[in-house]
C-alpha cells in the first residue's frame, strides 16, 4: 500500500520564524490533505490539495503530484501554531497518515 513519510519529525521555532514541512508519498494520489492536531487532540483541516498551490492566511501548501511530494509553509509562526502537522493520502478507500511533524513555537 501507499507509504507517507513526513519530515522533519520535530521542529522548534522562535515566534515569527518561517518553516517548511515536507510530505513524501510512494504512489500517485488523487488527494492529499494537511491537518493540524492541536494539544487537545482536535484534527483541523488545513488543505485539501491534490496538486498545485493553495494559500490560507499565513499558511500555504504546494503539491507536486508527478514528483510525489507536498510542502506546507508556515510564515511568521505564532505560539498557537504549535501542535502536530499531519499529511494524509488515500490508499483505496482508506486514508494513510504520515507520522507527523511536531512543531513547538517559542514566545
Amino acid at each position, binding site marked *: 500500500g501507499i507509504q507517507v513519510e513526513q519530515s522533519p519529525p520535530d521542529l522548534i521555532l522562535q515566534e515569527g520564524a518561517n518553516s517548511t514541512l515536507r510530505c513524501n508519498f510512494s504512489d500517485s*494520489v*488523487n*488527494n492529499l*490533505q494537511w*491537518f493540524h492536531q492541536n494539544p*487537545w*487532540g*482536535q*484534527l483541523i*483541516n488545513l488543505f*485539501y490539495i*491534490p496538486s498545485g498551490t493553495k494559500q490560507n492566511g499565513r499558511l500555504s501548501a504546494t503539491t507536486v503530484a508527478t514528483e510525489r511530494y507536498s510542502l506546507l509553509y508556515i510564515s511568521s509562526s505564532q505560539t498557537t501554531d504549535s501542535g502536530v502537522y*499531519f499529511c*494524509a493520502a*488515500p490508499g*483505496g*478507500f*482508506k*486514508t*494513510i*497518515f*504520515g*507520522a*507527523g511533524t511536531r512543531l513547538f513555537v517559542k514566545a
Partner: protein
Amino acid sequence: DAGVTQSPTHLIKTRGQQVTLRCSPKSGHDTVSWYQQALGQGPQFIFQYYEEEERQRGNFPDRFSGHQFPNYSSELNVNALLLGDSALYLCASSQGQAGSPLHFGNGTRLTVT
C-alpha cells in the same frame, strides 16, 4: 451546519469490558471512517462504512466492529478490551468517492485500566 460529532468525549473502562463509541457525520456526508491514534503516533485506519456496510478494513482484530445506521451515523464497538486499546478514537466523515476529503470529529479518549 454541524460538523462531525462524537460521543462520549472521555471514557474509562476496565480490561475485558466492552465499549461503544458513537459518531454523527457532517451534513451532506454519507461515509464514516474510524481511526485509532495511540499517544505520539499518527491515526491508524480501523474501517470505513458506506451504505451501512463495512467497505474497507485496516489491520485490526475482529474485536473491533462497527455499524452504520440509515441516517449515516455510526458506532464503533470494541470487545474484550486490552490495555493496549487505550487511545484517542477519531471518527471522520466524507462523501462516498475514494479520495474524498475527510472531516474529523473531536475524538473519544478511551482509557483501559
